[in-house]
C-alpha cells in the first residue's frame, strides 16, 4: 500500500470534486459519510507510508518515497515536475493533518448539522485538506507554493463561509489580502532561488547548499523572503492581523485551519529548508527573534480579550511564535514537535470552545459565561486538559515540546530569547486559566433564556474532544528530553535524516534539570496567579486596569495595530485606487471602448450611403467591381 502513497492527496480531492459537482443531489447523510471517509483513507495510507519509511534498516540514508506523477513545466533546461515526496518530515505533517483533520470532520458533522450549506462546508474542508497535503508532500518549492496558495484560498472561503454576515465577508478578504502580501514575498524568494539555482526541487536545493553554490548573502535574502511569506501564512509579526478576525468562521474551521494545519505551514516550510536557514545565520536569527517577540506580544494581547475564540486566536499566534523560535535557534525538531503537540491541544481547545458556544446558543463573550462546570460534564474536563497542556504543566505534552524549545534556546546561548520565551510561558498559563475560571467557575452571568437551552453537546462532538484530550496527554511521550534518559526522544531521532541543518545542543544534566524545574514552576505560577486574580480576589483585575489605564487600553485594543495598518496602508491604497478609477479608468479606458464603438457606428453610417435602393447604383458598383477584378486578372 505504501507505493501508492501519492494517492494521499487525491482522496480528499476526489471527494471535493464529487461534492462540488453532485452535491446538490446528495443526501446529508451521505455527505457526512463521504467527507470524513476521504480524510480517513488519506490517514490510513499515510500510516502505511510512515511504517514503510521508519523501518530500522534505513538508518543511514534519508528514508523517503518519491513519485513523479507527471512532468509539469518544461522550459528550456528548467524543469519542474509534479513530484510528491514522503519523508519523515512529511510523515509528521501528513499524519497530523489527516489525523486531526479526520477528528475535526467528525466533529463538524455535529456542529454544522443545522447549517443550510452543509455540503459546501464539507466540500471546502476536503478541498483544504487536499491543498494542505499537496503543500506538505510537494517535492519542490513550486508545487509547495501551489498548495500554499490553495490553503490560502480555502481559508478565505471558509472564513467567509457565512458570507451574508458582513463581518465574516470582510474577515475573509482581510485574510486573503494579508496573505497575499506574504505570498508576494514568497514568490520573490522563489524567483531568486530559481534564477540562481535553476531548480526548485528540495534534494537539488540541499545539494546546492552543501556544495556551497550559493553565497550567504543570497541565501539570507531568499530565506528572509520566504520567511515573510511565512509570517503571512503563519500569522507572525507583522502579518498576523488576519487571524483574530478569522474567528468569524465556523469553529471547526478555526480548529483545523487556524490552529492545527494551515498556520503551521510556515513552520513546515522553514523546517523543510532547514539547510538554507542554518546556512544563513542572519535569517535564522531573524526567525528566532520574530518568533520570540510574537510569542510574547500575542500573549499580552490575549490577557485582555473577552471573546473566547479571540483569546484562543492570539494564543495560536503566540504558540506558533514558539515554533519559529525553535526553528530559528536550530532546533527544528523541537519546533516540529511543538507543532505536533500544539495541533492536538489547540484544536481540542477550539473544538471545546465550540462546544461551549453550542451549549450557550452561540454566546462567545466570557463576561456572559461562568459556572458552566456543572452543566458540561464532558466539555469542561477536556477543555481543562487542553488548558493544562498549553500552560506547560509537566507530564502533559505541551510541557515536553515547549521545554524542548526553551532548552535549546538556552543551549545556543540565546539567553534573551529564552527569557522572552519564559515570560511568554507564564503569560500563556495565566490567560488560559483566566479563560477557564471566567468560563467554567464562579457565578453564572448568563441569562435565564440561555440557561433554559443549556445542554451538553451530542456524542458526535464530545467524542472527538475526548480523543483529542487523550492525545494531548500522551502525544508528548515520544519526545522525552534527555533528563529521562538518552535516546528516548524518538521524535527527534525520526526526523534526524531530514533536518541536517539542525544545531546540536549540549548541556550538562544538571542544567537540563534546572531548566525543566524553572519551566514547570513558571507554568504553575501562571496558573496560581490566574487563580488569584479570577477566583480568589475577583476585584484585582479591575483594580489593576484602573491603576494602569493606558496600558490596559493599549493591550485591549491590540496595540492599535489594525488601526495603524488601516491608516498607513489601507486608506492610501483605497484613495489611490479611487483616484485612478475616476481619472483614468473611466475616461480613458471606457472612453476608448465607447469611442471605438462610436467610430464604427460613424463609418457604418457613411458606408450605408451607398445603399440607395436604386438598381442603377447597385449595377454601377457591380460593374466597378468587375472592372477592378478584370484589371487584376489581366495585368
Amino acid at each position, binding site marked *: 500500500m505504501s507505493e501508492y502513497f501519492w494517492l494521499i492527496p487525491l482522496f480528499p480531492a476526489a471527494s471535493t470534486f464529487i461534492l462540488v459537482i453532485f452535491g446538490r443531489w446528495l443526501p446529508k447523510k451521505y455527505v457526512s459519510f463521504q467527507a470524513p471517509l476521504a480524510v480517513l483513507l488519506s490517514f490510513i495510507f499515510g500510516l502505511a507510508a510512515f511504517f514503510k519509511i521508519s523501518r530500522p534498516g534505513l538508518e543511514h540514508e534519508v528514508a523517503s518515497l518519491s513519485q513523479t506523477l507527471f512532468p509539469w513545466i518544461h522550459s528550456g533546461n528548467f524543469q519542474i515536475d509534479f513530484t510528491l515526496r514522503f519523508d519523515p518530515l512529511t510523515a509528521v505533517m501528513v499524519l497530523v493533518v489527516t489525523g486531526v483533520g479526520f477528528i475535526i470532520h467528525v466533529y463538524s458533522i455535529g456542529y454544522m448539522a443545522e447549517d443550510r450549506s452543509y455540503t459546501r462546508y464539507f466540500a471546502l474542508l476536503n478541498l483544504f485538506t487536499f491543498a494542505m497535503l499537496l503543500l506538505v508532500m510537494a517535492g519542490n518549492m513550486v508545487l509547495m507554493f501551489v498548495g500554499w496558495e490553495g490553503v490560502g484560498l480555502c481559508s478565505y472561503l471558509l472564513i467567509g463561509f457565512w458570507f451574508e454576515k458582513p463581518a465574516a465577508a470582510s474577515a475573509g478578504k482581510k485574510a486573503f489580502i494579508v496573505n497575499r502580501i506574504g505570498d508576494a514575498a514568497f514568490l520573490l524568494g522563489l524567483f531568486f532561488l530559481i534564477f540562481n539555482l535553476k531548480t526548485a526541487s528540495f534534494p537539488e536545493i540541499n545539494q546546492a547548499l552543501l556544495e556551497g553554490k550559493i553565497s550567504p548573502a543570497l541565501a539570507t535574502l531568499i530565506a528572509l523572503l520566504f520567511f515573510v511569506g511565512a509570517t503571512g501564512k503563519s500569522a507572525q509579526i507583522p502579518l498576523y492581523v488576519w487571524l483574530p478576525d478569522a474567528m468569524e468562521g465556523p469553529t471547526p474551521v478555526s480548529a483545523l485551519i487556524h490552529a492545527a494545519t494551515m498556520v503551521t505551514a510556515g513552520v513546515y516550510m522553514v523546517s523543510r529548508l532547514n539547510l538554507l536557514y542554518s546556512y544563513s545565520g542572519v535569517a535564522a536569527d531573524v526567525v528566532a527573534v520574530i518568533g520570540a517577540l510574537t510569542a510574547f506580544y500575542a500573549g499580552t494581547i490575549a490577557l485582555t480579550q473577552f471573546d473566547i475564540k479571540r483569546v484562543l486566536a492570539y494564543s495560536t499566534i503566540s504558540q506558533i511564535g514558539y515554533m519559529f523560535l525553535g526553528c530559528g535557534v536550530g532546533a527544528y525538531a523541537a519546533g516540529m514537535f511543538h507543532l505536533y503537540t500544539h495541533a492536538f491541544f489547540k484544536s481540542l481547545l477550539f473544538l471545546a470552545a465550540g462546544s461551549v458556544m453550542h451549549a450557550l446558543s452561540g454566546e462567545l463573550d466570557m463576561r456572559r459565561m461562568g459556572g458552566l462546570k456543572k452543566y458540561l460534564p464532558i466539555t469542561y474536563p477536556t477543555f481543562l486538559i487542553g488548558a493544562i497542556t498549553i500552560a506547560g504543566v509537566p507530564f502533559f505534552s505541551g510541557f515536553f515540546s515547549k521545554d524542548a524549545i526553551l532548552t535549546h534556546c538556552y543551549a545556543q546561548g540565546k539567553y534573551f530569547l529564552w527569557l522572552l520565551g519564559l515570560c511568554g510561558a507564564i503569560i500563556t498559563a495565566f490567560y488560559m486559566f483566566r479563560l477557564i475560571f471566567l468560563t467554567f467557575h464562579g457565578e453564572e452571568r448568563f441569562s435565564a433564556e440561555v440557561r433554559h437551552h443549556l445542554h451538553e453537546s451530542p456524542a458526535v462532538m464530545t467524542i472527538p474532544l475526548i480523543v483529542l484530550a487523550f492525545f494531548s496527554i500522551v502525544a508528548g511521550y515520544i519526545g522525552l528530553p534527555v533528563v529521562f534518559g538518552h535516546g528516548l526522544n524518538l521524535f527527534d531521532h525520526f526526523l534526524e535524516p531530514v533536518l541536517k541543518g539542525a544545531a546540536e545542543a549540549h548541556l550538562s544534566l544538571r542544567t537540563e534539570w534546572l531548566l525543566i524545574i524553572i519551566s514547570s514552576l513558571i507554568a504553575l505560577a501562571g496558573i496560581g496567579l490566574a487563580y488569584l486574580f479570577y477566583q480568589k480576589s475577583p476585584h484585582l483585575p479591575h483594580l489593576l486596569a484602573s491603576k494602569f489605564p493606558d496600558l490596559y487600553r493599549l493591550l485591549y485594543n491590540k496595540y492599535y495595530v489594525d488601526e495603524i495598518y488601516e491608516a498607513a496602508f489601507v486608506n492610501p491604497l483605497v484613495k489611490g485606487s479611487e483616484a485612478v478609477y475616476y481619472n483614468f479608468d473611466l475616461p480613458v479606458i471606457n472612453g476608448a471602448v465607447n469611442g471605438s464603438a462610436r467610430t464604427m457606428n460613424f463609418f457604418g453610417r457613411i458606408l*450605408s450611403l451607398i*445603399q*440607395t*435602393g*436604386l*438598381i*442603377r447604383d447597385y*449595377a*454601377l458598383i457591380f*460593374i466597378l467591381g468587375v472592372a477592378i477584378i478584370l484589371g487584376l486578372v489581366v495585368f
Partner: protein
Amino acid sequence: MSPLAFFILSLVLFSLGTLAFLVKRDLITQFMAIEIMLNAANLAMIAASRLMASLDGQIVVFFVITVAAAEAAVGLAIILLIYRQKKNIRSEEINLLKG
C-alpha cells in the same frame, strides 16, 4: 471571318448593353438591355465553340437561351406586380431597399 472579329463584336454589343442599362430609367428597357448582354455573351460562346471545334459551346448557349426565356417570364411578371403597386415603372422610384 476571323474569330477575332466576332469576339470584338460581342464585346461591343456587351458594352452597349451595359451602357443602355445604366442610361435608361424605366424598368422594361433596362430589362431589355440585360437580354442584349446575354446575347452578346452567347455570341462569344458560339465563336469560341467554332474556334475550338467543340460542340460544348453550342450546348451551353442552348441552355442559356432556355434559362433566359424562363427568367424573362418571371422578370416580366415581377415588373407587372411593381406596376400594379406603384402605377409606374420608373426605376428611380423603386428604392424600398434603401439604407
